[in-house]
């Protein structure tokens, strides 16, 4: 049996990789993918704790996170499409209308 620590460390590694991607990449689509990766890392933590505490509530939380991720992906990609239609780019550095 793999100890709980190792699941948590895997989750932390995936979360950090996702965070690095969000901060360093400039393509809006890849930033979205990194956010999905971070959400997945959190899901892994929920499931691991759920198993080790012998409590099913973590599964419900994961279910809710998946729902929110699906809603977020749909709305976010629609925003990216309308943004691309206006500015012909998905580079977040060139999208600076709100910068003043």
């Amino acid at each position, binding site marked *: 049996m793999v100890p709980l620590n190792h699941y948590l460390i*895997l989750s932390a590694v995936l979360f950090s990789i996702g965070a690095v991607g969000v901060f360093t990449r400039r393509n809006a689509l890849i930033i979205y993918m990194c956010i999905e990766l971070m959400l997945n890392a959190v899901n892994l933590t929920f499931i691991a704790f759920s198993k080790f505490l012998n409590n099913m509530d973590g599964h419900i939380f994961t279910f809710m996170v998946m729902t929110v991720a699906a809603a*977020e992906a749909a709305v976010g990609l629609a925003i990216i499409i309308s943004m691309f239609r206006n500015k012909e780019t998905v580079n977040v*550095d060139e999208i600076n209308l709100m910068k003043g």
Partner: protein
Amino acid sequence: MFYIIGGVAVLSALIMVTNKKPVSAAMSLIVVMFCLAGIYVILDAHLIAALQIIVYAGAIMVLFLFVIMLLNIQEKEGRVAKHKIFFQFTWILATGYVFINMVKLIGAGDLPARMEGNIDGFGTTRVVAEILFTDFLLPFEIASILLLAAIVGAVILAKAKIE
């Protein structure tokens, strides 16, 4: 088995973050999703593993690939200004610091002890559904309203012109 799947997941995640092409990044992300589904199976979360493959690897990633295809992006990310590289480096250092703190926290040994005994049918559809439709009925309904709002929002945002 866990270590093999975990290693593949971390490698694919690294490929995803460093890859220039959005399509290759999406493919690596699908590999990560499948690896996580495998880990969920190891952790006896069978329903969540199936949902992970159907919802993430199926629905969300297909949506991503459709948008990549639709936008036909010419990647221009190669030329990054000098001062931006400095900012990126700073962000990587900051994230690394947070990561080190997370590992320290995990290694501190305050984790709860493993509970003994086993729920009958842990992680199966029947047990998850029983909890979902009794204790968590209100969050379930709110989630359905959230999805409805997301559908309407996505359609309105992606529409060409609003008269």
